[in-house]
């Protein structure tokens, strides 16, 4: 079996995913096309050599529907022989795209693939693609709650307080602010432009450098009304009857920010380097996807990590940096507690709480961030993992060349 190598990666800065956000006026297909163009420019890529464009995208409806990867590739000027595919593994989509591309390369079925993700949450609303998972007929057999309630459930069950979460959120903002000020993200970012090549956004703008603990503490819980007033908490009772109640501790401040963004990563076999005249930056060591109990939903990174380590024949101590997606503050906190990892190794430049979580793109963005950080810190290995709806979890281990 051959290895899969990461040759390069680019991403858009993440914009606030609202109507007032900087990327709101950009169609998702154009956002992705600009990303593909940026990758091509940086690597002087002969796009004829690309076998496929594999993109993660969660809300595949409206203007994000109908295989956006294929048409974004064409709009980006990629050769018409380059295929395109879109996949969804909810929040794990971007990393799943990378893993899928790697698997194709490792199997010898493909030589060169652009993988990544796209999500314009300001334009295509989360959940607007429907789905039957919360249908009543599904619920009778399989009680499910919205993710925020699952996050609050984890906090309640494993004893994380509101203050624990707010502290974590505060640090995420501080780390991200510092990383931005020191230009640590600039290697991979490219400016997103408007119709006249005017720059719409050239740095991540979800982060709040002026965040303060007392301001975080003043925010009201986001999921209390639906949990208590609309009784959704009791849908967890079937699985967690031992919980007297759920503490609603997650807020807009300690949950990930809704964002727009895209990311593209060039992956290929060893032969592709000399052929294209570029050097690989890292290789994929292992990857894993798991599923676990769907009501608590967001604890999947722990078993996913264990499996990825096992597949790579590695220990947690072999991993230099960890990217654990900050869908909710409790996710990395629970992860660190369960796997006995020091929080200082997790999300060294902040995470989605500060920087935003454009659903389908985040997995690829985290891998890109981890790769840059390894180079900056002169470290070797990183593990990227995300919690996923339905109780799934995904993890990838990369190793610098």
């Amino acid at each position, binding site marked *: 079996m051959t290895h899969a190598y990461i040759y390069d990666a680019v991403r858009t800065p993440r914009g606030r995913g609202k109507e007032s956000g900087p990327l709101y006026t950009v169609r998702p297909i154009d956002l992705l096309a600009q990303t593909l163009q940026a990758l091509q420019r940086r690597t002087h890529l002969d796009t004829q050599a690309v076998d496929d464009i594999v993109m993660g995208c969660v809300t595949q409806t409206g203007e994000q529907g109908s295989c956006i990867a294929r048409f974004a590739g064409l709009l980006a000027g990629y050769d018409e022989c380059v295929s395109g595919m879109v996949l969804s593994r909810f929040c794990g989509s971007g990393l799943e795209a990378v893993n899928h591309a790697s698997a194709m390369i490792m199997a010898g079925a493909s030589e060169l693939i652009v993988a990544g993700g796209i999500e314009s949450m300001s334009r295509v609303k989360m959940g607007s693609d429907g789905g039957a998972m*919360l249908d*009543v007929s599904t*619920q009778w057999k399989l009680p499910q709650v919205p993710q925020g309630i699952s996050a609050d459930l984890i906090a309640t069950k494993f004893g994380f307080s509101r203050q624990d979460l707010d502290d974590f959120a505060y640090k995420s903002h501080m780390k991200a602010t510092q990383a931005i000020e020191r230009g640590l993200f600039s290697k991979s970012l490219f400016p997103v432009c408007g119709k006249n090549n005017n720059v719409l956004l050239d740095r991540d703008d979800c982060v709040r450098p002026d965040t303060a603990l007392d301001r975080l503490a003043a925010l009201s819980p986001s999921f209390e009304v639906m949990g208590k007033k*609309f009784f*959704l908490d009791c849908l967890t*009772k079937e699985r967690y009857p*031992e919980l007297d109640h759920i503490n609603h501790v997650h807020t807009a401040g300690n949950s990930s920010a809704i964002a727009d963004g895209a990311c593209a990563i060039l992956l290929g076999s060893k032969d592709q380097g000399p052929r294209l005249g570029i050097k690989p930056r890292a290789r994929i060591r292992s990857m894993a996807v798991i599923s676990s109990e769907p009501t608590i939903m967001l604890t999947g990174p722990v078993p996913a990590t264990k499996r990825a380590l096992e597949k790579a024949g590695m220990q947690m101590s072999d991993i230099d940096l960890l990217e654990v997606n900050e869908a909710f503050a409790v996710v990395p906190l629970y992860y660190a507690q369960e796997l006995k990892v020091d929080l200082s190794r997790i999300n060294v430049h902040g995470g989605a709480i500060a920087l935003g979580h454009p659903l389908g793109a985040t997995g690829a963005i985290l891998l890109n961030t981890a790769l840059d950080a390894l180079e900056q810190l002169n470290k070797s290995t990183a593990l990227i993992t995300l919690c996923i709806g339905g109780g799934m979890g995904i993890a990838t281990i990369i190793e610098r060349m």
Partner: protein
Amino acid sequence: MQLRFDDQTQIFFLTMQMPGSVNKINAEFTAKFSDFIDTVGKNAAAKGIILQSAHRDFCVGADLELLESCDTQASSILAVIKQLNQTLRRMEKLPIPIVALLNGSALGGGLELALACHCRIATDNSHARLGLPEVTLGIIPGAGGTQRLPRLIGIEKSLEIMLTGKALRISDAKLTRLVDELSTESELISAALAWIKANPKPKQPWDLSNRVSIGPQVDSEMGRQLFLGACAQVIKKTAGLFLAPQLALSAIQEGLRIQIDRAIELEAEFFASIIQTQQAKDMLRILWKDKNAVEKCVGLPTCEDPKIRSVGIIGAGMMGSEIAQAFAKKGFSVVLNDVSDEALSKAKKDLMETVLLSNDLDTLSNCDLIIEAVFEDTQLKKTLTKRLAPKLPSGSIWASNTSAIPISDLATAHPHPENMIGLHFFSPVHAMQLVEVVMGEKTSKDTLARSLACVRAVRKLPIVVNDGYGFYTTRLFCAYVLEGAQLVAEGYDPVLIEWAAKKAGMLVSPLQVTDEVSLSLICHALKEGDKYGFSYPRAGAALLQKMLELGRPGKIAGKGFYNYDGDRHMWTGPRATLGIAPRDADLSFLTHRIQHAQQAELKRVLDGGIIRQQRDIDVGAVFGLGFAPYAVRYLQN
């Protein structure tokens, strides 16, 4: 049922007039209805149909006798449903207007009939109600109700109507578009004729290609939220045990996504699956057949006139004053007595003005019926009886509202023990339908017959039981709450115990209800019970005693098994303060323990000869003890 063609207006008058006083849908009705619609369809001159009732109400729904025969007749019931659904579709697609005249109530299948008309004109009779009460009997609508109602009035309102089964007054129905027009009884026909003239070619909203939906669409964000919220509410209320609201919700959500004809077929599938469940059969039996029998006192001594005009209530606590109010509301002349003026003035606030208040026992000496509702103290009760009973008119009845003390014991203080009976009301009286009527050893048939007449007069459900400490309901109640305490004392997780009870089919969990009635009351009842050899789990009783000593008497003090500080949170004290060693258990183990404690107590009650009629067991459990009617089956299994 008859069909008449009016030559002058060229309108068909379809008049429902089933034998008896109400219109009910059965096989015969359906077949005839289908024939009539065929007849109308063949008449090219017809300008419209007016569907009306010759009875006081429009139509009160399916004939429950038909459903009751479900065991043997399931396929024929489904055939009737299918025929009815096809007829209704054929009818509403006729190229002429069809108007339903709602002169009174339209319930269940009756409302479904009206929903298949193009227009509903109603008279605002105070007795008239419109609704789909099927879920309250453990079934779901089967003649298009789950499909037409939300398509007509929107998801939100129709979920409320179908999930609660609560019927609307006409004026409220008008606000929802369920009723198109209001009219008076005498002008119904002319209003219908006018509507027909103005709308010669109406189409049902669901048959229009470009219709605007009322409220959110099924798969809009709001629509999804409505269903998710309704789902959570159902789970919360029923712990996922009750099928009817679940299937109703499923039928609505799934059906709204598809074309109407297929949606009605889908509803019929759901309907077919539910009518054959044990749960539906149990609910139909308990809530309809047995309840009717209890209500009408079938098989019990009756009397035309109980000769009771004046009622004296002793004890103006919550129970006494609520009983006083219940009798006063039904026109009895009522005297409420208490030694405490303070208690009387407190009671006065919630009482009708016709209730006489008195602190002098002698003012009751002319009463035909005395209901004693003082504190559960045998001696006090006897003393009062001894003082007042001899002064009463001969033949007046003395009823004790005791929930436990044997009537035969209390009757020793009465010069005519044959006039003594137990009338055990449940708190809160206005909400609880049950009255446990207790026969002392010497209680006469005449006393029973007259007492039953009184209970019926105040619209309560009387179950008649024999004497013995705790009778039927209190013994089962004690077995339930004591098992809750016992499990806590044994070290099981209180939070799990509470949920296990819900999963067993109890509407209120044991520790919660213990807090609500107060630990002191239960401990007192157990102490009294000791005198009569009443058996109960000792560790549970000791725990209650210990909690009392710790100053945790229940909700009233803000501290019991729970802490009440705005929110209600489980007290962690059994382990933290009392040092009870924790023990792990599966939920199903705890559920079985609770169920078994109740079954075992029922067995002892039966062995003791307390129960006189089988039907009283379930009716008592459901209407007095908070057993869910959809789950009570386990009690006797």
